């Protein structure tokens, strides 16, 4: 008879996940599934509303990475208006997007993952959080908190209170960027670069102590998809899509993101609410791909800023072709933070940013609009259809976490196979395995409320089901 082990993060808020691990007679893993519910009902909320409201609506609907949704939504709106937005508006949006990536990565690395990495996966659970980290290494933890503040401060000063929903919309942005704001941002830069470099050095020196994790937490071949600029360099706001395979070969490039539905398909599996996107020419499941920090660094030929380029060259040595170990998402995040900080500094010297022409005025010129950008977790697409007056008739979102769905499942399965010991053999298999499964999911920093609200560890419930009945249950509540 098969046994079924369920791990269920206990959460009361929208996105929640559950893991089911099926083991056979001998206790060996036969399959592992990561179930997610996402954005259900969003399309209904949009229907019948003016498309101009969408950026603001999106900022409220998704509290995890509102900026990315505001940008993708604004860009879809730009397309509906049929305008090219003023340069200042584009630069402001770029700035805020870099800030968003930086602050989101800081949260993921310092608050959520660093406790595992620095204190060890097997350190006592009550200590494995940002507070434990603070006790252990105050300076390091402080720096992490400040890095996040830096990103949030930019978003706040450019976009208005946290992210003022009215800041960016179809046609541009609503407020001019000032030199006083520039000066404040510039004053942070030396500290920010120093902190990121310190974290990078620290993580790189630690990597050797995780041979098991590197090898068995999400190490598998897949395609990688990301936005790049005209020359194939790292890009977050506007560009074309490039896809590479695990050997590092370019599979496709110069793909127009507004035509994403022609080259990306979505498959369904009966065990998950979330779709499984794939690269159409390869079919499903062969066409599954990863997005986000690891994918961006694999896809981009270069970063385009000096410090990040040096790190990127070194990073690319870690794989044969592409870097396939999902554990390296962490390292990729830090390199991206470095790049974002450099780009932010660069933008501060860009005179276009301060221009007061910030909004292109136009009325509706198209019935279908698509906007995309790189969110912290990967490529994001918003696809809108409107009636002749501009009322939404349909909305489709393709979010980063969904695109990593296949990879998360594969990682969980691989991790479970490696770290789940046969039940009879030991009584304390749960904690060790739990920590690794949690770590496998953390690599992707999925935008589930559990991954951002829980400090240090995910609240989990494991149910061991035997012949349909629960025979064992292990609960881990929030730290």
């Amino acid at each position: 008879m098969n046994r079924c082990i369920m791990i269920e993060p206990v959460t009361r808020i929208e996105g929640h996940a559950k893991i089911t691990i099926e083991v056979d007679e001998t206790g060996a893993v036969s399959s592992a599934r990561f179930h997610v519910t996402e954005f259900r009902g969003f399309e209904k909320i949009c229907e019948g509303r003016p498309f101009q409201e969408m950026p603001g609506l999106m900022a409220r609907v998704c509290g995890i990475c509102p900026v990315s949704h505001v940008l993708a939504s604004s860009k879809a709106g730009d397309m509906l208006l049929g305008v090219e937005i003023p340069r200042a508006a584009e630069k402001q949006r770029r700035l805020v997007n870099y800030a968003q990536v930086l602050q989101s990565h800081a949260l993921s690395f310092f608050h959520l993952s660093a406790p595992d990495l620095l204190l060890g996966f097997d350190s006592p659970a009550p200590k494995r959080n940002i507070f434990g980290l603070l006790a252990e290494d105050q300076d390091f933890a402080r720096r992490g908190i400040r890095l996040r503040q830096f990103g949030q401060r930019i978003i706040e000063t450019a976009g208005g209170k946290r992210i003022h929903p009215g800041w960016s919309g179809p046609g541009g942005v609503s407020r001019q960027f000032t030199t006083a704001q520039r000066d404040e941002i510039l004053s942070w830069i030396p500290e920010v670069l120093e902190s990121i470099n310190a974290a990078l050095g620290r993580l790189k020196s630690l990597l050797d102590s995780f041979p098991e994790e590197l090898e068995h937490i999400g190490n598998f071949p897949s395609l990688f998809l990301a936005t790049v600029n005209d020359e194939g360099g790292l890009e977050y706001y506007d560009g074309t899509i490039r896809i590479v395979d695990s050997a590092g070969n370019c599979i496709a490039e110069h793909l127009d993101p507004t035509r994403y539905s022609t080259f990306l398909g979505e498959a369904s599996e009966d065990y998950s609410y979330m779709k499984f996107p794939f690269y159409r020419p390869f079919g499903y499941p062969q066409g599954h791909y990863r997005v986000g920090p690891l994918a961006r660094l694999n896809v981009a030929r270069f970063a385009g800023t000096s410090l990040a380029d040096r790190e990127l060259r070194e990073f690319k040595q870690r794989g044969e072709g592409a870097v396939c170990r999902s554990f390296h998402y962490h390292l990729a995040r830090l390199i991206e933070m470095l790049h974002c900080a450099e780009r932010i500094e660069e933008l501060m010297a860009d005179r276009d940013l301060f221009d007061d022409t910030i909004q292109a005025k136009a009325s509706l010129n198209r019935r279908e609009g698509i906007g995309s950008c790189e969110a912290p977790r990967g490529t994001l697409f918003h696809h809108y259809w409107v009636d002749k007056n501009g009322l939404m008739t349909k909305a489709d979102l393709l979010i980063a976490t969904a695109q990593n769905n296949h990879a998360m499942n594969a990682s969980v399965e691989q991790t479970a196979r490696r770290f789940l010991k046969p039940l009879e053999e030991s009584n304390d298999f749960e904690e060790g395995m739990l920590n690794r499964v949690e770590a496998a999911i953390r690599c992707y920093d999925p935008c589930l409320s559990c991954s951002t609200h829980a400090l240090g560890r995910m609240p989990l419930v494991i149910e061991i089901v035997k012949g349909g009945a629960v025979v064992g249950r292990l609960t881990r509540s929030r730290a």
Partner: protein
Amino acid sequence: MSVRTLEVDGKMITALEGQTIFSAAWDSGIHIPRLCHLGGLSDVGACRLCLVEIEGQKRLQPSCMTKVAEDMVVRTNTPALRAHRRLIVELLLAERNHVCSVCVLNGACELQDLAAQLGVDHVRLRPQYPKLEVDLSHDRFGLDHNRCILCTRCVRVCDEVEGAHTWDVAGRGKNSRVITDLGEPWGESASCTSCGKCVQVCPTGALFSKGKTVADMRKDRGFLRYIVTAREKKLWIA
């Protein structure tokens, strides 16, 4: 015009004969809550937020419709009145869709302000959330019935100040809607002059400038005082 003296909330105030309790109180710094009243437009007593207690009268009276009288004793802010007002606002919030966080007027809305002022931190009634239409057919403005509280300010300003009388109210009870002309889409209205006065006087996010996103709309009612004063002083008559 003769002067009347009356007591409002324990304070002796003077008012002109024919003045409403509402405006006399406001002139003396006693601000009675209101939604349908707007200085410069006629009063209709639609919202009932300005209800007051008048000594010697059993029924509450809308202060925007009730004239002052000599030696009147009025109370505008008793616990019972506050409870009534709170309930009225809750009814308004429950009747249509008022999810402020995704509304164009979030942060500058009279209904929202009033709710905050009256301590409406939650709505005890089951929200109805009817799915009402949004009319974006006009070139410059939009109408979202979901946010309309049927105060008829738009109807009055269009009729009394602009002189176009584009707006009206059709239907009864919960089916009441403001309409343009005989119910045609706003964009097809033959009488609308696109002056935008209705948009500016609307207390909620029901009427807005097209292109505004969440919390992006701000209203400017300065024009009304200017026009009404000019008209009273006959500035436009040579």
